[in-house]
């Protein structure tokens, strides 16, 4: 498979270097196009950062989206689960075709159902959320799933490891 080499700190453009301190493979790849890097990293940081949804729910959505999109890189990274509030059993279950309902509360089950529909057919996918989430929460969930969908495709197409 054709691969684009990620850039190291010393070979990257000046404006990209602040983003490469964290050794993020995403940043190291986006450094090829510094103007994209400068826009994408803050966006990803906000979308995946602290929010009104809480860390556990957000992590659940990111991991489930990555599983649905068969993104090996993101699934591996988000299966580490540190600080997410998800247990090893939770993570293992999210990675299966049918997560165990008993491990998750009502809102989490609705979010999992949403992700499965979102990845297959975004239109109508938020219906399962309406009974459990406010409008702003639904918008946030869609944004998280959408950003993760982008990251999944980016990582898979470029072979991030």
């Amino acid at each position: 498979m054709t691969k684009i080499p990620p850039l190291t700190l010393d070979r990257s453009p000046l404006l990209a270097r602040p983003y490469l301190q964290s050794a993020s493979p995403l940043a190291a790849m986006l450094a090829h196009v510094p103007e994209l890097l400068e826009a994408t990293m803050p966006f990803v940081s906000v979308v995946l950062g602290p929010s009104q949804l809480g860390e556990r729910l957000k992590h659940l959505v990111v991991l489930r989206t990555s599983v649905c999109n068969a993104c090996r890189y993101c699934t591996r990274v988000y299966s580490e689960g540190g600080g997410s509030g998800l247990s090893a059993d939770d993570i293992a279950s999210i990675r299966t075709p049918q997560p165990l309902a008993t491990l998750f509360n009502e809102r989490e089950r609705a979010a999992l159902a949403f992700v499965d529909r979102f990845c297959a057919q975004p239109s109508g996918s938020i219906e399962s959320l309406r009974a459990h989430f406010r409008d702003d929460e639904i918008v946030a969930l869609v944004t998280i799933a959408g950003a993760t969908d982008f990251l999944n495709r980016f990582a898979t197409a470029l072979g991030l490891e």
Partner: protein
Amino acid sequence: MIAESTRATRGRLWFYTNYHCNLECRYCLTESRPDAPRRSLDRELIETIATEAVELGFDSFGVTSGEPFLRTDMPEILESLGTRLPTVVLTNGTLFTPRLLDRLTLLAKLPVAMQISLDSAEPDVNDAMRGAGGFAKIRAAIPALIARGIRVRIGTTADEGTNLVSLCELHRSFGISDDDHVVRPIIRRGRANTNGLGIEAAFEDLPAEMTITAEGAFWSPAAPTVQNDRLDISYLLSRTVLPLDVPVDAMARVGSEQPLREGAFRVT
């Protein structure tokens, strides 16, 4: 002669029109050679960028490459640039056939200068670094250009062994003033680095003059160098070159974040 000079402002916008060259100089920053990847800038793109550059306040243009006159549309490119702003083109001076010289007469009425690379008044010394037969062609081209009313400058890439006294005598003999003689050191990038030539150049040593290439906008004309066939993007500003304010904004931010001092090298 202008020796190592002051940092140029970002008033000049450079175009790297192509990367291939009929010569294969030992210190070339871009590993240019006849079969080098061309990385050519479309003429239409050059003209669109030039129009925006005028609006954004650039005050002159520079054209550099491998060898610009390998492009058959170079006279028209220079005419287009020269009608907008003063323009200098860096050339090895070996391709000025009578036919090309006739096509260049249209530049005589414009503020367009040819900066011809010449490293020594001694043919053997010059050609050892730049390629056999070059000196004789340059010696023929300079008076031919001047006779057509085209301003000629001399650009010398020097090391500690360069005999500038005899070189200055030579350019004065053509009627080229000391003000039109630029001397810069060999910068250890590209093929010069491969050959262990020249002096190291840090970021702050490079002239801060935005440079447009087919692969993006760079901090300086000495920035988009090539070694082992790989373009160095350490000083890449942006891949986006239009609208031009994208790299202009990036350049301003780089300039505000990096320690600046008077640049040590001057290209023109």
